[in-house]
């Protein structure tokens, strides 16, 4: 701890110098500024990704219509206002890539890990501010590379965000597999570098730079979530890099890691044969499955924090929450095969993956129950952040339950690659994580910009988004169950698909209304940056450490010494206190000192056996990690 403190102090001194515009706003090494850079880039990417989805939704709802504006916008990709099938695929692919990696990995994790880790564990900055800065710039470079691929002659990568070879490996298979795919791969490689630089930083900051008294078991659940997320990323992204590298070799250097027995456009002979397309899928999903938890866990962490604060109630089952995060993280590495039940892999392997996958439902269920119990007998303040968090819980339940169908190898025979899958992942990963991100933005806006966002607009934003999200994604379950495949440019293949025409229109109109509601958010966000009501230091009367920093958001975070932490972060509504919150950094002046030697000890008379047990458990966890 002492080196960290030293480092932090020297950092602190440095903030006295006058900073130039460039070092303050552009090449900033302050974690708060970097987090804002991630956030704004994420929001911009989010808008782009969303607009793309609206464009291809129009195609799905009105396949015969000619949209004049599309030709204006897209030129040769929408001749006569009708979207080109290749470009449709390109849009779907880039939409998926943007949403998964750029918005919900970098935009969510990058923003809030950067903002909250130092603030909530009590550090002056990240372990390596320079690496942190690099992380952002790699991310930006990656974003630009990806977006540039939309504007090239042959169009962007269009084999789906999973870019399975041989489709993505053979230039002749589709136009998007040419330069567009090369750019996609470069963008992802840059992205992985960015993500690794960030992840290493997050992990080392959490492990090494906690302030006095901030033992691991006093960390807010946000930090636990970011911590596990970073570990997942660190272990799984390199595998994707490897997979991408092999793909680059196959595309450009004549290797055949993923290729075999291919005949395309009158050309029968690859130089080398004997690779396996399925190998790519194994490698991809070894990242791909942890990736969905990389997306979801930060959102869950944010939700824990926001729900506890606004329910004015301790989060229920802190230990269980940490253990389930741990369980989910571990299990997420050994379930990737559930994306591959029908690739023709050995049926026995399918059974194994099915069992492991359904086990993951248990920790997830525990989390959902714990959220519900936290709300029970709470005193709920519906700030926009709170509403979005509750919305997340709702999506997490609805979307999580359909995972039980998809994890079942037998049921997956029918459901794989159908609209059921689209419904499932948009609810549990898409909507839930986006809601977590929005909750985080509304909640920590005062810490980022020193101002408040407008609540009323927030309420409208929430309800419209919440309702339309369900209207968009819920009916898709039924389409999928009836056998409507995803990634279809239009549903003209079978007579039977016509039944879904109205549903498709409903979905598209809801998506447009939902998209329009995001304008409220954008307006609210940017207006409040400059003109919002001035915030106080602790506007939500929350407990965690970040609320002890001054409104001015100085480099180094705290003007004087870093506060000491005296208790866990969820001491809300203690019966022995007048106020309904008890910040971590406020020394206890009334209760006898002894009580603070053990965690989660609280109202003097009320030391239940369970609580003793929990501290014993934490001691055990600490020992496992070798930390204190």
């Amino acid at each position, binding site marked *: 701890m002492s080196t960290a403190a030293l480092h932090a102090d020297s950092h602190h001194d440095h903030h006295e110098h006058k900073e130039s515009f460039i070092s303050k706003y552009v090449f900033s090494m302050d974690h708060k500024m970097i987090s804002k850079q991630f956030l704004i880039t994420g929001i911009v990417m989010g808008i782009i990704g969303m607009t793309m989805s609206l464009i291809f939704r129009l195609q799905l709802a009105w396949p015969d219509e000619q949209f004049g504006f599309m030709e204006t916008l897209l030129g040769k990709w929408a001749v006569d206002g009708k979207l080109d099938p290749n470009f449709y695929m390109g849009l779907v692919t880039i939409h998926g890539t943007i949403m998964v990696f750029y918005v919900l990995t970098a935009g969510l994790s990058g923003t809030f890990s950067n903002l909250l880790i130092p603030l909530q564990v009590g550090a002056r900055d990240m372990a390596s501010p320079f690496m942190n800065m690099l992380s952002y710039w790699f991310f930006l470079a990656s974003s630009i590379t990806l977006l540039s691929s939309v504007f090239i002659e042959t169009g962007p990568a269009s084999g789906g965000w999973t870019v399975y070879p041989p489709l993505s490996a053979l230039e002749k298979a589709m136009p998007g597999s040419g330069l567009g795919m090369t750019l996609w791969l470069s963008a992802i490689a840059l992205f992985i570098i960015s993500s690794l630089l960030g992840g290493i930083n997050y992990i080392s900051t959490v492990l090494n730079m906690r302030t006095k008294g901030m033992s691991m078991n006093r960390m807010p659940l946000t930090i636990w979530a970011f911590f596990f997320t970073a570990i997942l990323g660190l272990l799984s992204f390199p595998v994707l890099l490897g997979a991408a590298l092999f793909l680059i070799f196959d595309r450009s250097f004549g290797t055949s890691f993923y290729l075999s027995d291919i005949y395309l456009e009158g050309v029968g002979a690859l130089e080398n044969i004997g690779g396996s397309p399925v190998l790519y899928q194994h490698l991809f999903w070894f990242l791909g499955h942890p990736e969905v938890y990389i997306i979801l866990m930060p959102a869950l962490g944010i939700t824990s924090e926001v729900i506890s604060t606004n329910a004015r109630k301790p989060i229920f089952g802190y230990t269980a929450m940490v253990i389930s995060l741990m369980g989910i993280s571990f299990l997420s590495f050994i379930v990737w095969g559930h994306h591959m039940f029908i690739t023709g892999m050995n049926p026995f392997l399918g059974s194994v993956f099915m069992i492991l996958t359904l086990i993951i439902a248990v920790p997830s269920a525990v989390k959902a129950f714990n959220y519900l119990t936290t709300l029970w007998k709470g005193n709920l303040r519906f700030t926009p952040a709170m509403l979005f968090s509750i919305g997340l819980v709702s999506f997490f339940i609805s979307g999580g339950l359909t995972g039980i169908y998809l994890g079942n190898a037998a049921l997956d025979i029918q459901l794989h690659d159908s609209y059921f899958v689209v419904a499932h992942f948009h609810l549990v990963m898409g909507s839930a994580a986006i809601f977590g991100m929005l909750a985080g933005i509304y909640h920590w806006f005062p810490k980022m910009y020193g101002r408040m966002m407008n609540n*009323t607009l927030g309420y409208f934003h929430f309800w*419209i988004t919440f309702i339309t999200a369900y209207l968009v994604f819920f009916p898709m379950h039924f389409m999928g169950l009836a056998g409507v495949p995803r990634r279809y440019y239009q549903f003209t293949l079978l007579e039977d698909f016509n039944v879904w025409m109205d549903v498709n229109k409903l979905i598209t109109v809801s998506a447009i209304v939902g998209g329009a509601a995001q304008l409220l958010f954008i307006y609210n966000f940017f207006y409040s940056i400059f003109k919002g009501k001035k915030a106080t230091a602790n506007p939500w009367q929350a407990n965690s450490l970040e609320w002890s920093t001054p409104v001015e958001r100085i480099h180094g975070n705290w003007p004087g010494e870093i506060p000491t932490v005296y208790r866990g972060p969820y001491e809300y509504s203690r019966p022995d206190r007048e106020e309904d919150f008890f910040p971590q950094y406020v020394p206890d002046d009334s209760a006898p000192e002894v009580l603070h030697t053990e965690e989660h000890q609280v109202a003097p008379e009320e030391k239940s056996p369970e609580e003793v047990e929990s501290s014993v458990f934490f001691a055990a966890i600490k020992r496992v990690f070798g930390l204190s």
Partner: protein
Amino acid sequence: MRIDTLRIRLNSIFKKSLAVLSFVLAPMMLLAADVIEPPKEFSIANFDWITILSVLLALLIILVIARAFDIGALTEKITGKTVVSWNNINAWVAIIFLVAGLFGVWYELKVHGPLLMLGNSASLHGDTYDSMFYWTFGFTFFVFVVTEVLLFYFMFRYRYNENRKALYYFHNNKLEIIWTIVPSIVLTFLVLRGFTTWSKITTEIPKESQEIEVFAYQFGWKARYAGEDGSLGNQNFNFISGSNPLGVAEAGQVDELVKELEGEISKLEAFKASADDSILAWKGRYDRFVATGLSRTYPEDFKTLKTKFNDGVSGAYVRTLEKDIKRKRTALNRIAEYKKDDGFFDGTANDDRVTTEIVLVKNKPYIFKFRARDVIHSAYMPDFRVQMNCVPGMPTQFAFTPTMTTTEARSIKNKPEYDYYLFCNKICGAAHYNMKIKVTVVENEAEYNTWLASQAPLVAPKVAEQTPAAETEGIETEATDNTVAMN
């Protein structure tokens, strides 16, 4: 103070107008009406500007209202009287959402549920599948309703009240153990059932199953049936040619391919030999274009010429030729390897039928062998609860027994035109959405035999060449022989 009273009044008006706020929902309600009623044509004329404008207008109104509420908040501060309690409004909206949401779920189940054809699958394992589905649906739907109801009920019940303090409640191990154990038990049950269902579907394959090869390519399907000899001939992707799209090991076709490849190679060799002359010629034309100013009159032609010329000079032209030659040589060598193996071209392929439709007999077990030649496709037959990826270089299979003829399906669905299809369910390129093959299930073997006889074998039988009239006859007898042999 008078201004303040005015503001308060204004605000109460706004508060009442909240009811009117359902205008946000109005477009959606209209649409819902559109869904409930038989669809009117949703014309773009209504959609384009009017929709966009009204959405913008709605946003503007929301902005104004939000501002008004801010003023309200200010007056609240000044007068100390609560005008609008957003906390209560949100709690109520939550309850309304819950009720409306449950209604929506019920509506979906009622209207779209029957489209899933659960309990009416067209295959033997389909029933096992459906029962697995029902079990899963039962559990998840129960949990879904209970937890969502609790969630929104808690939102309402425990909304903020100044005079109340939340329960200081950290954890309850007993409760937590219960809700870890109970889902575990339920999931164990589902896993065990899933395991048996999955194993049954994937591994219990009747010995007498008939093999059919289903072949996927960009963008279509072909099926291959064994002919009279009852066995599918060999195949290899190196044999694929324009006339032999599946690469079946049929000696005549393959010899032709070899000849074709050799011809192409010598042509390419010739190009390569005269490369210097060609480049010189291009240079000449290039210079002429520049000198005469034609380059400006025909910029496109000039551009092509320039690329050609540049490629020639940089050596790219020759390299491409060499690469092409090498690739064709590789193909030839590979074919030669197979040619050495006498057993490979054993003639079993000669009577195979390559068809553009799949015909199956009711209650007869089949095993589909899937192949693809370019990218991954997926053979999807939702009516039969069948799906399997078709992977280039990795043969896959799916065994099943159809139990409902096309005619029966038509009468159950009440659609006289209904047909089963196998279609592609793995993204495979621009026309992925347009890749199907008809599957017909017939009542009995005889119907099937008639159909098979109408399909031409890869190599026409010798007899057929002499007397065209005898052709059908000959095949028919052979076909019946074959059935006898198989039974």
